[in-house]
């Protein structure tokens, strides 16, 4: 890296760099003893060394710190010496009064560099190795000074003057960069009524200050992060892989490897920029931060920084890109569009991205296909699937034309993503068949088949191009695809291979494993440089933090564990993007296990994600993991604990429209209202859920399905069977139209339930059976078990003669129901079991009362935790009857009393002592 950053002219001398040089002189004075004058010990001496090293690498802000800030930092490391060091620094700086002083200073500086041959050096003497990091820095300073014109020297001198004056006059550093020094004459400022500049400065100052003070921590602990980034993925499987596929959007840190982007820092103009790669590193860091935090990222503050940056370096086009990202994540469509176009007009796509300058010279034409790719991603993000597809197809065409394979691979991946997320019902209406990028397959094939082929092809392409992260994320995408799609033969003619019409969990496991494996092998990772810079930044910031970070880590629970991880990280630690990818593989795993019905495994995977990856992933993903954990709590531990957890999550993530946390809250409240019998509230909550979805057809499908499913459930609870059935039917039709098979299974089960409740068991059975067969082909084990339970209930309601059959069905499903089912499911199973026994003519209660009482007791306990009044009353009712038969009157009275309590609660729903029920 260093070799590439060396060309002269890219490195402008600024007062801050002169300060560092002065400190380097202190660190390595010529011809001194092993521990030079001001230092008390070797470790003390080394401390300054580390500090200097980080100063040359840190990129916490694009603008260099002022003298005050530097002195404050010096104080942290200087210990006893701090006064001496800062005095020395200011003295030396203010002694530079004429150009000749500068000449002498740099002459002296040369003396501290050792010669190339080490043997002439005394053992005791400290010399700076010219090829060490600090040595390199000094040499670059020297070179920059030597090529400087006299005007340049004059400017440097006057800049040093301002730099010292700023510090002495103790006025905020950014005030002087503007024309009006309002601090000197506030009255005047007021008179001129031009408050805008003033406010602007204040904001930027504040932001800077906050950032400098505790960047990492402030983002996480104050600014809650979660906003829903991708409109389409409101449920599992998570949106995460979208993030990787649009990797080209990120400013890839390998960019400086091209000579094009290797431009030095802008010259001083009131404020001074750091070196070029520090600026680049800062920008990519910010880009990551924007993508991670979504709309909770401070838009105006950052925008003003960008404005300043653009002012001092108008040719640094990456700024426009950051602006684009900033507006994109704040859903500012015109702003995003404008800045995207501007960025690519200027940069021609030759900045950033994994750009390899093409020896054949075609790169001279620019790579505008990347612009198209980004535009497509933008439309996708903002929920314009049609435009997005149109643009992406154009991107495919252009990248084929320019034989830009990398971009093609990314574009195909983006299209896959789009298809899987949106799920167009009729693609051919959107694009003409002849423009379809994978023209090999017939137009008659369904969208799923097209997606399947597309995924496989892009995987191949990515593999041949050795784009490891892309390969990994395509594997994840394939896993997601396989999760919800039955394999079908691709050929509609010819000899048919025997394909099982079911999903293949083994395949998914294989895909996940492959992706995982690839990620762990990121030898050609290029973002080490930023990691390095970020590491130094956090180290420098850490200087100011109180030492008791252990207490802090306990307070913040999961979060700051990885803070420690960051601090202890070596410069070659795992880059963020890889961590991100790894994290989402865990999310996909959790999703897979949830679908297959293994609750503990799903929970563990979500927990792993929340523990280890919530820092490196986007806040939306983290919120998703939290949401899942909360849902598990609700299902397995009851609402009390779930709401307690929800409260924590709400504090952690921003709870605004469409955030997953809000969604979970609504879901929980709805379920609880149903259980408690607050049907009006339930309906209201259900409507709230429904309006969160976008009105566009084909967008937000998951959310829409969920809303109408819950609507049907509410109607069912209100005993309005006809309407419930009508809603469920239309839902089924919609799911069928959009090929959402897994949801269809759920809908079928609901229909069976409706028929059961309406007392029409005979017509319910076919639905239950259909659901069973769906579950079978999709390997939905838990759903299958609950369908079996419903089937048993249906049989049972046909009469006592079917009790045996029902009992055997229940017993068959018991392992899954008890092992993975939630509280409600388990108790339902218990109650049904008891009912089966009671209904069976050959069974006599008095002989073996525990056979019935034990499950009933279990059920009633669990249902009380869940506050499910209806089922609980049923359990107590059965219990009372059994006790009555057994002649145990006291127990009977107890059970009857509990029954009465629950029935009254069910019939008189009232909101009591509940802080969360005051919704909305």
């Amino acid at each position, binding site marked *: 890296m260093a070799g590439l950053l060396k060309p002269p*002219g*890219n490195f*402008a001398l600024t007062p801050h760099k002169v300060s560092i040089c002065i400190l380097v002189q202190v660190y390595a004075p010529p011809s001194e003893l092993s521990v030079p004058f001001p230092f008390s010990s070797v470790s003390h001496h080394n401390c300054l060394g580390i500090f200097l090293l980080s100063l040359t690498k840190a990129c916490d802000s694009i603008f260099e710190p002022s003298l005050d800030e530097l002195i404050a930092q010096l104080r942290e490391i200087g210990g006893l010496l701090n006064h001496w060091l800062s005095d020395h620094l200011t003295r030396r700086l203010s002694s530079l009064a004429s150009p000749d002083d500068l000449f002498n200073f740099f002459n002296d500086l040369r003396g501290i560099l050792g010669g190339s041959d080490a043997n002439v050096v005394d053992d005791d003497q400290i010399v700076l190795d010219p090829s060490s990091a600090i040595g390199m820095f000094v040499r670059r300073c020297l070179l920059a000074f030597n090529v400087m*014109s006299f*005007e*340049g020297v004059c*400017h440097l001198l006057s800049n040093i003057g301002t730099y010292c004056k700023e510090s002495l006059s103790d006025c905020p550093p950014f005030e002087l960069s503007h*024309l*009006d*020094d309002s601090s000197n*004459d506030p009255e*005047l400022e007021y*008179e*001129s*009524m*031009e408050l805008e*500049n003033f406010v602007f400065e204040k904001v930027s100052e504040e932001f800077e200050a906050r950032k400098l003070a505790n960047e990492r921590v402030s983002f996480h602990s104050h600014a809650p992060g979660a906003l829903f980034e991708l409109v389409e993925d409101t449920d599992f499987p998570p949106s995460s892989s979208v993030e990787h596929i649009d990797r080209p959007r990120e400013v890839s840190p390998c960019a400086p490897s091209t000579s094009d982007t290797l*431009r*030095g*820092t*802008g*010259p*001083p*103009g*009131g404020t001074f*920029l750091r070196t*070029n790669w520090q600026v680049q590193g800062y920008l990519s860091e910010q880009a990551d931060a924007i993508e991670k935090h979504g709309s909770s990222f401070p838009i105006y503050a950052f925008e003003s920084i960008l404005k300043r940056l653009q*002012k*001092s*370096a*108008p*040719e*640094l086009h990456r700024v426009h890109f950051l602006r684009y990202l900033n507006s994109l994540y704040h859903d500012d469509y015109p702003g995003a*569009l404008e800045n995207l*176009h*501007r960025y690519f*007009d*200027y940069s*021609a796509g030759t900045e950033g991205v994994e750009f390899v300058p093409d020896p054949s010279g075609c790169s*001279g*034409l*620019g790579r*505008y296909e990347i*612009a*198209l790719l980004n*535009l497509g991603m933008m439309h996708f993000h903002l929920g314009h699937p049609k435009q997005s597809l*149109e*643009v992406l197809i*154009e991107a495919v*065409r*252009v990248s084929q*034309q320019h034989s830009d394979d990398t971009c093609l691979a990314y574009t195909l991946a983006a299209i896959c993503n789009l298809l899987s997320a949106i799920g167009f019902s009729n693609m051919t209406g959107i694009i*003409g068949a002849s*423009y379809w990028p994978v023209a090999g397959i017939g137009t008659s094939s369904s969208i799923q088949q097209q997606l399947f082929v597309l995924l496989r092809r892009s995987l191949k392409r990515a593999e041949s191009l050795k784009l490891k992260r892309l390969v990994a994320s395509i594997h994840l995408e394939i896993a997601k695809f396989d999760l919800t799609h039955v394999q079908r033969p691709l050929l509609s003619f010819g000899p048919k291979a025997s394909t099982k019409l079911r999903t293949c969990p083994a395949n998914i496991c294989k895909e996940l494993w492959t992706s995982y494996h690839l990620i762990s092998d990121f030898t050609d990772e290029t973002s080490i440089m930023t990691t390095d810079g970020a590491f130094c930044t956090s180290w420098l910031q850490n200087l100011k933090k109180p030492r008791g970070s252990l207490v802090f880590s306990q307070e913040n629970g999961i979060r700051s564990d990885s803070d420690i991880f960051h601090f202890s990280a070596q410069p070659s630690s795992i880059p963020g993007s890889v961590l991100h990818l790894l994290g989402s593989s865990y999310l996909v795993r959790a999703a897979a296990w949830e679908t297959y019905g293994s609750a503990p495994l799903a929970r563990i995977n979500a927990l792993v994600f929340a523990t280890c990856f919530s820092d490196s992933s986007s806040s939306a993903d983290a919120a998703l993991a939290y949401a899942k954990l909360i849902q598990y709590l609700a299902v397995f531990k009851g609402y009390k604990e779930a709401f307690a957890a929800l409260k924590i999550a709400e504090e952690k993530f921003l709870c605004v429209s469409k955030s997953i946390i809000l969604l979970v809250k609504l879901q929980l409240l709805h379920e609880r209202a149903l259980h408690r019998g607050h049907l009006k509230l339930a309906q209201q909550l259900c409507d709230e859920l429904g309006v969160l979805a976008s009105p566009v057809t084909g967008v937000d499908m998951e959310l829409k399905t969920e809303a109408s499913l819950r609507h049907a459930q509410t109607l069912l609870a209100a005993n309005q069977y006809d309407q419930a059935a009508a809603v469920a039917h239309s839902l089924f039709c919609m799911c069928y139209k959009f090929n959402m098979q897994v949801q269809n299974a759920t809908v079928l089960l609901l229909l069976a339930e409706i028929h059961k409740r309406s007392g029409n068991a005979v017509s319910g059975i076919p639905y239950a059976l259909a659901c069973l067969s769906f579950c079978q082909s999709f390997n939905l084990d838990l759903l299958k078990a609950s369908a079996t339970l419903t089937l048993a209930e249906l049989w049972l309601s046909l009469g006592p003669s079917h009790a045996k059959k029902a009992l055997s069905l229940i017993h068959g499903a018991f392992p899954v129901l008890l092992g993975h089912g939630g509280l409600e499911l388990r108790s339902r199973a218990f109650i049904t079991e008891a009912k089966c026994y009671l209904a069976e003519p050959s069974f006599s209660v008095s002989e073996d009362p525990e056979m019935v009482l034990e499950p009933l007791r279990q059920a009633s306990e669990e249902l009380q935790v869940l506050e499910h009044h209806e089922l609980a009353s049923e359990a107590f009712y059965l219990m009372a009857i059994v006790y009555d038969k057994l002649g145990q009157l006291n127990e009977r009275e107890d059970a009857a009393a509990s029954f009465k309590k629950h029935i009254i609660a069910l019939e008189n729903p009232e909101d009591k002592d509940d802080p969360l029920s005051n919704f909305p």
Partner: protein
Amino acid sequence: MASKETCRTELRSAVRLLSDRGLYSASKWAAEQLMGIEQDPAKHTPSHTRFQRGSSSIRRRFRAAAAGDSSATPSAGVSYVATPSMAGAEDYEYDAIDNDFYLLAKSYFDCREFRRAAHVLRDQTSKKAVFLRCYALYLAGEKRKEEEMIELEGPLGKSDTVNKENVSLERELSALRKNGTIDSFCLYVYGLVLKEKGSENLARTVLVEAVNSYPWNWSAWSELQSLCTTIETLNSLNLNNHWMKDFFLANTYQELRMHNESLSKYEYLQATFSFSNYIQAQIAKAQYNLREFELVEVIFEELLRNDPYRIEDMDMYSNVLYAKECFSALSYLAHRVFLTDKYRPESCCIIGNYYSLKGQHEKSVIYFRRALKLNINYLSAWTLMGHEYVEMKNTSAAVDAYRRAVDINPCDYRAWYGLGQAYEMMGMPFYALHYFKKSVFLQPNDSRLWIAMAQCYETEQLHMLEEAIKCYKRAANCNDREAIALHHLAKLHCKLGHTEEAAFYYKKDLDRMEAEEREGPNMVEALMFLAQHCKTKKRFEEAEVYCTRLLDYTGPEKETAESLLQGIRYEKLDVEHFPP
């Protein structure tokens, strides 16, 4: 409107006053307008008037009666403020010593030694001295700023160097304004400072005060104009009525692309200032934007006769000559401006245009580059350079140049159009649409832009024919000179199977071609379609007419027409014999 005589006396004193204060360009402008007023033939020597009369004869031919009308209608009910002559009164408020200081300072100022001038006036308190000191300091700061811009030019571009004097100037001037001892010239400097600082609202207020108290300072008006970027801001200005305001309004309307309003204002002003070169050039500019190239050429020819060493606005003339492909006239113009002053951005632009017309795009780019070196914000040079790069097939350079143009002025529809074109060339029609949309938004009455957008929709990649039809319709509605739109509309409708619409547009196109006496393949196509269409619609007479016209052409069409005619005869027979 004030009488000619009033204007004359006012301007005469203004020229003296302005040049005494070193406001040279304002005094130049005032002197130009002074000479632009028609002289009273009784008072002047015949030779003088002859010069004026003779030179304006051609222009008069073009000045339609409308101009005469507008000049005859002074806006009734508006009382013009005629500021009592300030001139001369101040000159005597000094005593001799102070005046000597001022004289020295002014001499330094004239030698462009601004700091020295300011230093001489450091203790002077008269308004005139204060102004000259402030103005000299401001200019010194500007000079230093420009030097620094070159010195500090880094690899990431120029940093934002600022005028270092502005802070202290602002402080001093705002204090003066507060205690009411500021004169209109100092207000002007204050406005300049505020504008550079970015406090636009206050700058506007201050400049309005400046022009209200002393309306003859054209520089102040121009600064004010540059701060009026929307019609709302313009209307919100609280300006006194004075004949200078009309100049201002005319200029501002032009910048706001209200060309017709601007034109009528100028024509009204021309009644008084009938010989003003400035007004003539401005009229030319407005006509150029309305694309009346013939008229513009005539105006410029006359302008050059009167003022042969003029360089201002000549780049526009060269654009007209370029559009009309007048090789020799353009080369003559280029030669003339080259000899007059080769280091003016306009001169470079004219030479660039000449090379472009000659097809030597590399050389042309060199000259546009030079123009941009002289003035980095020279809008038309960026756009023209973009055009050159497009010609050279260097699309990314073209995109870059165009983008810089639109970043300087986001209302430059030509550059937006160029961007769209460049992307379309690269085979990215969907991406290009964004730019075409921008350009038609800014210039909705330009058929070329609509046609370009329609063609973009029509490309085989996009194939959005409905949208293309909409665009062509817009184009056909706004004076499509080459009648491309009609033909395309007909063809598209035909393609989509809308035969009635297709017939309608073919007919329209045909009528138009007949009216303009054009011939060509389009004519044949239209006739052929109409013949067939009328035949299928059983309008045999019409069909026969079209077929007979087709017989005039040679080639396969003739044969088709013959067979059509035969078919028509048979069918006619059928209809006659077996009426339905």
